């Protein structure tokens, strides 16, 4: 779906724990999430810490939406893959 949205020129960022799949399909703005079953969460840390982590992800996603990209890219919280 992200590919279809992107093909029409609309800014979307796909957060996924399996960025290979999205990237293979051609999605250009991909952000790697935590895990498949807990994409923006983490049971190893406290709920407060988890929400802070989730906030980091969202801010990163928003940052990506404001980036001009020349070609597709898989992003992580810290950088790129």
């Amino acid at each position, binding site marked *: 779906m992200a*590919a279809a949205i992107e093909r029409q020129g609309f800014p979307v960022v796909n957060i996924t724990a399996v960025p290979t799949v999205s990237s293979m399909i051609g999605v250009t703005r991909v952000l790697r999430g935590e895990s498949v079953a807990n994409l923006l969460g983490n049971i190893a840390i406290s709920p407060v810490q988890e929400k802070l982590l989730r906030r980091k992800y969202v801010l990163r996603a928003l940052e990506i939406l404001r980036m001009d990209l020349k070609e597709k890219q898989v992003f992580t919280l810290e950088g790129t893959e």
Partner: protein
Amino acid sequence: MNSPKLKVVHYLNQFFGQEGQEEKADMKFVVKPGPVGPGLALQKILGEKGQVIATIVCGDNYFAEHMDEAAAEAIKLIAPYEPDLFFAGPAFEAGRYGMACGAICKAVGEKLDIPAVTGMFEENPGVDLFRRHAYICKTGRSTLKIAQTLGEMAALAWKLLSPEGGTKIVAGEMIGRPAEDGYFSRGIMKNEYTPQTAAARGVEMLLAKMQGRTFETEVELPKFQSITPPPAMRQELGACEIALISDGGLVPKGNPHGIRGRGNLVWAVYDLESFLPENYSPANYEIAHTGYYPARVLENPNRLIPVDVLRDLEREGVIAKLHPLFYSTSGNGVMQKRCEEMGGEILQELKKRGVDGAILTST
């Protein structure tokens, strides 16, 4: 040689079963003796080799809206006839009909252990869903070629009936490769003896490719196009409205829109204020997605759609607005074409409502 006539049962939808059109799409199963509609053409093709002894018919919606129960019901109706062979459709492009044909053929193959053959156009959702479980002949889009298609379905059926089955119609004829016999690859890799080793075949294929000669791949990989990155959101974040979309199958308890855990075809819209309030309860959600362990998301749906954070960011003025509607679907085993369509449909909504950018979470 006087082999007994094979007993054949045929499935048709409400339209081909001569009950009606969309107004009859909710009709329950009926069983009619002998061949009906296109079944008459099928009977002609079968000739002396087979007899269509019954035709089962139901509505496309009746089947599509509760596929498992309907397939089980179909088996109950088919089994007493003790058929040797089963045909469904063909469904051509019709999605609900294709899903019904595929599902019934799958059930017949598994429960009754007889060949079950149908026919569909390659984009029919029934193909991706059932190609591994049923023999689906490739058809065009148009139903005009139905007689020809039935002929191809019958030809495939003869090949499926092995000599060991007691009917020596075609002795020892191995079922050919999908391309040869005109059916969709079932994704089954069969070992074959070949005079050449894999190494030799690989080198030959590479040489052919380099020299511009034709070659045939032994394993077909899906083909994808490249996309030009959409322009970034132009405005400052503080002026942007951001929407959430997810294919993780997050729905209200009860799954009111019937989003399927696999092979889903629909998306739904939920108002975030009522759907995921700050004081949400895990008991109010379901995950209509059989492709991942749902517990973490059920405990806290914000882990799939970060509504809590986006609400904070809106309050703080980091973004102008969290779009009030959440676009939900299930992306498990959805055929590429329908996925594309859903993306396009959702985008239309986003554009209509003046959304600036979207976050799409996938599991």
